[in-house]
């Protein structure tokens, strides 16, 4: 009987200890110094949850950082994590152990608001982004990530898993694809190169070439040849000044 009481007391003691540690952890978390953003990197990898994530490098590349969104930390080692939805919603809808898992990691977690429950939480610098680009056009995780990456002036931004391929008839494809393409344009305009994984639908469309009005032919050496595509009349640029429409004598 005594032994049982002793055991119970021990359990209660341990539980109390756990609670105290938890509280302490939250308090000290507020003072955690998260690692600063690094300017002038060689590469910033931006990882989404699309299928081409599987092609992202698995080893650390020198002078590069790997930024991921939502639960991508499960697939690759990250330097920074971005969760632009409310983290409780993400936890409720997708990852039941999200908060616990990311608190077990060392990377900073960027969110739109501030969450004391997160160990290395950083509020996304929206004001800085708006001031720098003078445009409020951030409609998904990847667009926030690319905008912040551009500010760090890396040589290259490399996208894996940002495939925008969940069917072609929904908002994901209609608006978000365009938004990401806008930010890639912004990067290009600022002399930052970008690479999009081959499997992604970004920077292309299916079924047609990427040069409107031109026919693309790829030769054996993978060089692309561009020729004007004539769709009307004689299939060449030979044309008359005027044309007429006449009743045909055939019987189609």
């Amino acid at each position, binding site marked *: 009987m005594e032994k049982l009481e002793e055991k119970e007391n021990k359990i209660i003691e341990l539980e109390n200890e756990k609670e105290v540690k938890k509280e302490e952890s939250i308090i000290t978390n507020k003072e955690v110094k998260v690692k600063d953003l690094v300017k002038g990197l060689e590469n910033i990898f931006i990882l989404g949850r699309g299928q081409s994530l599987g092609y992202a490098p698995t080893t650390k590349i020198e002078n590069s950082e790997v930024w991921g969104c939502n639960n991508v930390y499960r697939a690759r080692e990250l330097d920074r994590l971005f969760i632009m939805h409310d983290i409780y919603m993400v936890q409720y809808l997708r990852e039941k152990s999200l908060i616990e898992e990311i608190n077990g990691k060392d990377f900073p977690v960027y969110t739109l608001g501030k969450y004391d429950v997160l160990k290395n939480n950083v509020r996304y610098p929206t004001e800085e982004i708006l001031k720098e680009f003078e445009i409020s056009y951030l409609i998904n995780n990847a667009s926030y990530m690319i905008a912040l990456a551009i500010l760090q002036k890396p040589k290259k931004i490399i996208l894996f898993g940002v495939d925008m391929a969940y069917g072609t008839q929904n908002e994901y494809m*209609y608006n978000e694809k365009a938004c990401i393409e806008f930010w890639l344009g912004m990067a290009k305009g*600022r002399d930052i190169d970008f690479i999009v994984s081959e499997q992604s639908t970004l920077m292309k*469309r299916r079924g047609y070439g990427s*040069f*409107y009005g031109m026919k693309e032919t790829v030769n054996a050496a993978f060089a692309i040849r561009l020729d004007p595509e004539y769709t009307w009349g004689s299939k060449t640029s030979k044309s*008359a000044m005027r*044309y007429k429409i006449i009743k045909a004598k055939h019987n189609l």
Partner: protein
Amino acid sequence: MGKGIEFIKNLDKIIICAQGPSWYQCPDKIPQDCEIWGCNVIYRDTYVDRIFIGHDPRGHFLEDDANFFENLNNLDIPVYTNGVFKPLKKNAFIPIMEILEEFNVGFFLNVICYMVATAILQKPRCIQFYGVDMRPDAGGETYLNEKGAVEFWVGVALGRGIKFENTPESYVLKIKQEGDFPGIREKIKRAGLIYQIPEADRNAMALRGYVIAPDGPEI
């Protein structure tokens, strides 16, 4: 006398006017140190300094303008196409090679992309859109992929420090319409070859009974 084929660098503004419903907001009087670049047959509705046509221009004879080339020649404006059409007095290639050399990106899903990329090469202070509306109701491809391609090139322009202005009704760089087309204007009625045949025959089936033939030598 119209402009020469050569583009002009460092203008204050290049206005790009396309055929979306906000086209009519394009100024009738051209501001100083500014050019208006139009696409396809927008010259029928508003003043333009240069015209860009990404597809085969001869397609416009059927629906839009039975005297297409003659009218372009009468306007004495440069016409940029993919391929050279000798009946056009001032015709040149869209400078795709120059664009590729500069940007090393091939992402031109419509003529506006070529126009914005060409405009960026001229380093204007500002690029302004009218009628580049990229509306969801314009058809799947326009909104699905072309919108992103246009936005990509706008991004390049902004990244290079070129100011960008647009009509509130356009969907470019946003996902909803903001303006409400105040004082909207109708376009001039189309006057292609198809309007020279009986109305009853102006459908895909009946049109099979007609052919379009050159009215004069092909050069």
